[in-house]
């Protein structure tokens, strides 16, 4: 799989940019702040229709413009034109081979990509949100159905929170009774969509567990005990019947939810506990160990996507080599060199890129890109 042509209009710092990528490895070089990451971010956006850097698409649109457009040609068994118009605050418009596509999930899977970025350290050291996003992006790429489940879930949470807030404010007991009876209905939706998402995440976690441990061993050059456990908010001992457990837990948090006016359990509050040699990685792992674990998670998702369908996913290494010590740098390069698909690398200087990764060089400066 390869994005052979990328055209950006009003995306980040680019008013207009066209770049053609050859097969194999492309290295984008240039000083910081010139727009290297923005180019690879656009490629990654085509895989998930979300950015790895920001939760809100507004930042993707060039200042003063109301939309951004990414056009691309994707080579797999055949060539597919995939175009996205990013409309912050409104639904994106997608085109496949110039024909409009109504739902994002119908265009998912045309591009599959795994991106390594400096922000990845937050997978280990950061908030639960970073780990949830990691799982969800992989879930959506392996099972596009989840795009609509997640949209339904988000909507349900918003509606349910509004209801809880107005219940907290209501004074008459009659009013409260009505609110409680509608709450039951939203609880049903919460459980329906929430349990579905949790089940999907558990499956993804299960699939990456082995590859993560293997990748960690490769990066750290020693066998370590890597454990990942899904931690469901307010639900200790998550068992098979997630829906039933959620129902029970909802009863327990009901009075607290009514006081605080927010939904206290469900996949939007869950986390993954990363454990290294018996200790929680977040508090105990060294900087180097944390990096190894973050990279191992990314390499594992690359493995999972690689097994998923024909055509190797695109591997994007955005400015990561500068963050790593010599040993990890070389091991990561070794892993990346094993890819038979497209590899996109960005770095400030050529010296940051390990020699194992030779490829076509581009230089990026002041919003322009030239080969060579």
């Amino acid at each position, binding site marked *: 799989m390869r994005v052979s042509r990328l055209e950006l209009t009003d995306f980040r710092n680019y008013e207009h940019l066209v770049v053609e990528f050859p097969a194999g490895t492309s290295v984008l070089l240039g000083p910081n702040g010139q727009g290297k990451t923005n180019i690879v971010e656009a490629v990654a956006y085509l895989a998930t229709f979300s950015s790895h850097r920001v939760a809100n698409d507004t930042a993707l649109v060039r200042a003063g413009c109301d939309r951004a457009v990414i056009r691309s040609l994707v080579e797999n068994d055949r060539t597919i034109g995939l175009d996205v118009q990013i409309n912050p605050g409104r639904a994106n418009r997608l085109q496949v081979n110039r024909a409009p596509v109504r*739902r994002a*999930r*119908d265009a998912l899977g045309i591009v599959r990509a795994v991106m390594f970025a400096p922000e990845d350290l937050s997978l280990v050291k950061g908030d639960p949100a970073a780990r949830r996003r990691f799982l969800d992006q992989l879930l959506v790429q392996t099972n596009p*159905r989840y795009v*609509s489940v997640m949209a*339904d879930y988000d*909507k*349900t949470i*918003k*509606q*349910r929170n*509004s*209801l809880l807030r*107005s219940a907290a404010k209501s004074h008459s007991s009659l009013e409260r009774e*009505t*609110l409680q*009876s*509608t709450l*039951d*209905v*939203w609880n*049903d*939706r919460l459980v329906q969509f929430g349990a579905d998402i949790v089940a999907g995440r558990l499956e993804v976690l299960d699939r990456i567990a082995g590859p993560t441990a293997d990748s960690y061993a490769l990066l750290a050059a020693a066998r370590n005990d890597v454990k990942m456990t899904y931690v469901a908010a307010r639900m200790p001992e998550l068992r098979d019947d997630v829906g039933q457990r959620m129902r029970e837990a909802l009863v327990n948090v009901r009075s607290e939810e009514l006081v605080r006016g927010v939904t206290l359990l469900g996949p939007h509050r869950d986390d993954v506990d990363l454990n290294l040699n018996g200790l929680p990685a977040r508090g105990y792992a060294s900087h180097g160990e944390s990096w190894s674990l973050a990279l191992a998670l990314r390499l594992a998702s690359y493995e999972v996507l690689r097994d998923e369908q024909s055509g190797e996913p695109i591997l994007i290494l955005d400015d990561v080599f500068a963050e790593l010590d010599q040993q990890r740098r070389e091991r990561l390069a070794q892993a990346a060199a094993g890819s038979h698909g497209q590899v996109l690398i960005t770095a400030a200087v050529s010296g940051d890129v390990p020699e194992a990764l030779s490829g076509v060089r581009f230089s990026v400066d002041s919003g322009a890109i030239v080969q060579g």
Partner: protein
Amino acid sequence: MYQTSYEGVLQDLIDQLVRLPAVGPKGAQRIAYHLLETDREDVEALAGALLAVKDRLTVCEVCFNTAEGALCRVCRDETRDPAVLCVVEEPKDVIAIERTREFTGRYHVLGGVLDPMRGIGPDQLHIRELFTRLADGTVQEVILATDPNTEGEATAAYLGRQMATIGVAVTRLASGLPMGGDLELADEVTLGRAFAGRRRIDA
């Protein structure tokens, strides 16, 4: 800044048009200029129609459909089956179902769906009136025909729960494959629902 808006009355018209659903600034501008070039009598006919809708159109006392007079056309029609009641969100849904000519019962228009974010709960919809209509036992079956989206499903589920105790048959519109569609092109959610709602073929 030099002349950022149109002549007073023209700007007023554009401002009014922009407030209409599905009309953006450009569209409003086009409509305004179109009206400017239209014959006076056609514009009068349009203005008359606008006011007539406002003056003469009312809400049906029984089902909250749009009506001219106290009752809507369906509620006035004695041949409609009073034992079957179809619950919809908006008057335009009545028109959509009427077009099918499949349904011979009566309607109840909720005036929206449960939407806590907009402060719409059961009390803001015509739900109490619905239960008043069900009280005398004439209605044998209630068909819930709200939209198959998050809020529509929640509203149907709420009504279903509330009706469970009053001994009326409650059904939900089937959702599934569109006519003339291809099975292989259906998305998983739609296909899944079509499976769940499959029916026996009567020999």
